[in-house]
């Protein structure tokens, strides 16, 4: 039996050596790859919702001769903050997924190398930020969603506007998310700033609070616990304009929820070449690809967002269940950047107390 114990000791001691060796080995591999093919690889820094059809990506790789690597260190504010912190040694060549509620922080920190693809549509060109540093890629609307079955059953009209949500007949029916911890929560806060102005939005939230709005920290929590479609007791929930497509019936003719299109804020996601990129040419090609028709038309099916290119074809059922708001509330990204933190603080004081 001593055999066993000896083997065990050897295993433990050996493991330590192995650990060090492994680290050493992998460093060699990686550095070889880096020196051999620096110009063949382009690294995309993104959030973990990034998806692209394999054949679309492969076509780009074949055509450009590039290999696309992905890293996904976070999303929303976390992604931008990581870009700011790693400015001197960027995580990759291109970033995709910076949105208009956080873009200015990254722009102010100077993490981008300006580059705008040629031939952008007018709509897309109008959304470019930071003197060409950020190219718009996709967009989606954050809106209040309603459980239409619940409203039908309770013989109550589905509310339509932000003002409706503060009316007594809709008391204790709405659940939203905390802007300090949730990106749709922040978008909705910005929507109310856009709707009621710098001087009016806090009063609006005070009236929502009086009307029994419920606040939870995360979207998953609101949608899968509190929303009535998941067995909760709130038939109004903060979500996306595309969410009703997920509650469509099997035959695809009806859906049990609807987005209130007069309560929305439009989130635009951007891509940009990172300053200090190891492969700046490859980075530009990758941004071109993200703006190309092939990728734009791939977006709805892969990431459930709208392409910014109005000429890109949309899936048929999108018009029906996932419409964009005709006139979402707008706030200048520079304003958002300048006031976001104080808004969140004021919101917390008003709603949380």
């Amino acid at each position, binding site marked *: 039996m001593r055999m066993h114990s000896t083997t065990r000791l050897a295993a433990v001691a050996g493991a330590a050596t192995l650990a060090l060796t492994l680290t050493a080995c992998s460093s060699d591999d990686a550095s070889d790859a880096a020196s051999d093919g620096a110009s063949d690889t382009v690294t995309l820094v993104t959030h973990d919702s990034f998806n692209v059809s394999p054949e679309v990506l492969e076509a780009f790789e074949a055509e450009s001769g590039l290999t696309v690597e992905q890293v996904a260190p976070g999303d929303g504010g976390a992604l931008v903050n990581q870009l700011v912190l*790693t400015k001197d040694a960027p995580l990759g060549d291109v970033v995709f997924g910076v949105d208009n509620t956080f873009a200015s922080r990254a722009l102010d920190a100077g993490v981008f190398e300006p580059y705008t693809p040629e031939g952008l549509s007018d709509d897309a060109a109008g959304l470019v930020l930071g003197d060409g540093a950020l190219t718009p890629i996709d967009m989606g609307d954050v809106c209040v969603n309603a459980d239409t079955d619940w409203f039908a059953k309770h013989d109550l009209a589905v509310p339509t506007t932000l003002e409706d949500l503060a009316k007594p007949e809709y008391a204790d029916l709405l659940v939203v998310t905390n802007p300090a911890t949730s990106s749709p929560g922040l978008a909705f806060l910005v929507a109310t700033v856009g709707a009621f102005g710098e001087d009016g939005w806090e009063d609006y939230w005070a009236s929502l609070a009086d009307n029994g709005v419920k606040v939870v920290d995360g979207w998953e929590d609101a949608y899968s616990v509190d929303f009535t479609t998941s067995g909760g007791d709130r038939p109004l929930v903060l979500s996306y304009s595309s969410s009703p497509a997920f509650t469509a019936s099997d035959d695809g003719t009806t859906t049990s929820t609807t987005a209130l299109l007069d309560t929305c804020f439009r989130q635009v996601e951007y891509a940009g070449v990172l300053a200090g990129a190891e492969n700046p040419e490859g980075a530009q090609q990758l941004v071109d690809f993200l703006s190309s028709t092939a990728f734009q038309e791939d977006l709805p099916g892969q990431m459930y967002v709208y392409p910014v290119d109005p000429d890109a074809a949309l899936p048929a059922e999108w018009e029906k269940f996932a419409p964009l708001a005709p006139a979402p509330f707008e706030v200048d990204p520079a304003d958002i950047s300048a006031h976001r933190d104080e808004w*969140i603080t004021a919101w917390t004081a008003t709603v949380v107390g």
Partner: protein
Amino acid sequence: MTTRRHLPGAPRAGRVLAWRTGWVLAAVVPLAFLGLFFAWPVAALVARGFVADGALDLGGFADVFSDPRTWRIIGTTLGQAVVGTVASVLLGIPGAYVLYRCDFPGRALVRGLVTVPFVLPTVVVGVAFRALLATSGPLGFLGLDQTFTAIVLALVFFNYTVVVRTVGGLWERLDPRAEQAARSLGASPARAFRTVTLPALTPAIASAASIVFLFCATAFGIVLVLGPLGYGTVETEIYVQTTQFLDLRTASVLSVVQLVVVAAALLVANRARSRRERALHLTSGTSARSLDLRTDAAPLAVTAAVVLGLLALPLGTLLVRSFEVPDGWGLDNYRNLGTTGGANALSVTVWEAAANSLRTAALATLFAVAVGGLVALVVSRRPRARAGRRALAVLDSVFMLPLGVSAVTVGFGFLITLDKPLGLDVDLRTSGLLVPIAQAVVAVPLVVRVLLPVLRAIDPRLREAAATLGASPGRVLRTVDLPVAAPPLGLAIGFAFATSLGEFGATSFLARPDTATLPVVIYRLIGKPGAENYGMALAASVVLALLTATVMLLAERLRGDRTGEF
């Protein structure tokens, strides 16, 4: 040592030197690992918060501490950690007794079951708890939704197993004769427990309590999901300040606060341990006896209540709901695990993620057991010099720190330090190796805590006797330390594996889309609308739970085989 001095000779002296060098290396290798993959990243990030325009700026302390909210947050954190720890320990001790000191059919299964919560992704548990406790849920009448009590219940749910296993591991091999002697001398069972068994268990209890305290103080996901609105702890505040506001000045002050709290807790635990720690009479076999329904009624009732009410109910709800599909019941959620989810929610299928998880966890376990094993071995020595003992106590505590420091701080710290570390021409931040390394950093403290009480309990006279009889130091280690340490080594491997399987915090900052692990894909699935994705998240959680239970059962089996051998 004295005996060795009587046996002079050149080869002997050379060997002693080699032996000493060996011990130094055994301490240096783990320290280098911890330094590179924990201390440096954390220090670098915290330092950024204290440097403004190239100059040291400690004004953040005054600003943060003058805000009454800070004190409220610190109070909440301490309250949550203390209540969570006390509840876990009080409920866990009877559990350790029933599951390790008593024998009954199905014991291995129950032992596996209690481990499962430990690795479940917090967001899934949070949602499962809320589904039970929400006003519209089956336990809504309790009025516990989004309360402090709900958080404490969830903390016990996660940490019960830490107490049960750490205490049980020692209790199981405690020689029962001391307690039997006390009984035959007329002590009541309660008195025999209080005066004989409890003091012997104190090191293990202190050990478990310190781990649980760190877990409770740094709990993140469940605090967000289950806590009342506006409820904040140091951990959630660091997260918000770092990822939302990028206010590193505030985050750094809070990180220092976190370190101070954690260090103080470890100091207290160390005191409690060392006061009680002494050689125990351990048996290498298990001393479990059959469960006696009459005399064991009280611990059995407590354990049954916890296992059935607090563990099995939420787990059962999770299991049942994983079979719920839009038009009734079925296996669709499990069939979907081979896909990337509704509307392509994932970049890999859940099965691919499961394979990633297993690969990563195997590597992480290797690192954690190697590093943690060396630490436990070094720390278990009893140098004669006071300074030497102090140094070992510090070493011990230092390796516990990763459990008490925010995953956000570590994750962001990695990003700013590990591009081409130590002059290597490799960006370690985006290399696949960093994920298992980060998981190992968190698993090392558990390995140490499992191995150390057992190694420390070895009577030093056994080693001295072996040496006197002419055994070389290596042979002493092999024949005295190893046989005792071998059974808990299986447990340590199981814990390390389970920890890496469930690790989410640091992994979420480091995992690449194509190497996403199970907790990462579960988190993504639950973050997408649609019954299909929610169902898949539940099914994937069940898969994760089963994987964990299997690993722990195997680890148990491993130690079962060993115990008979020595």
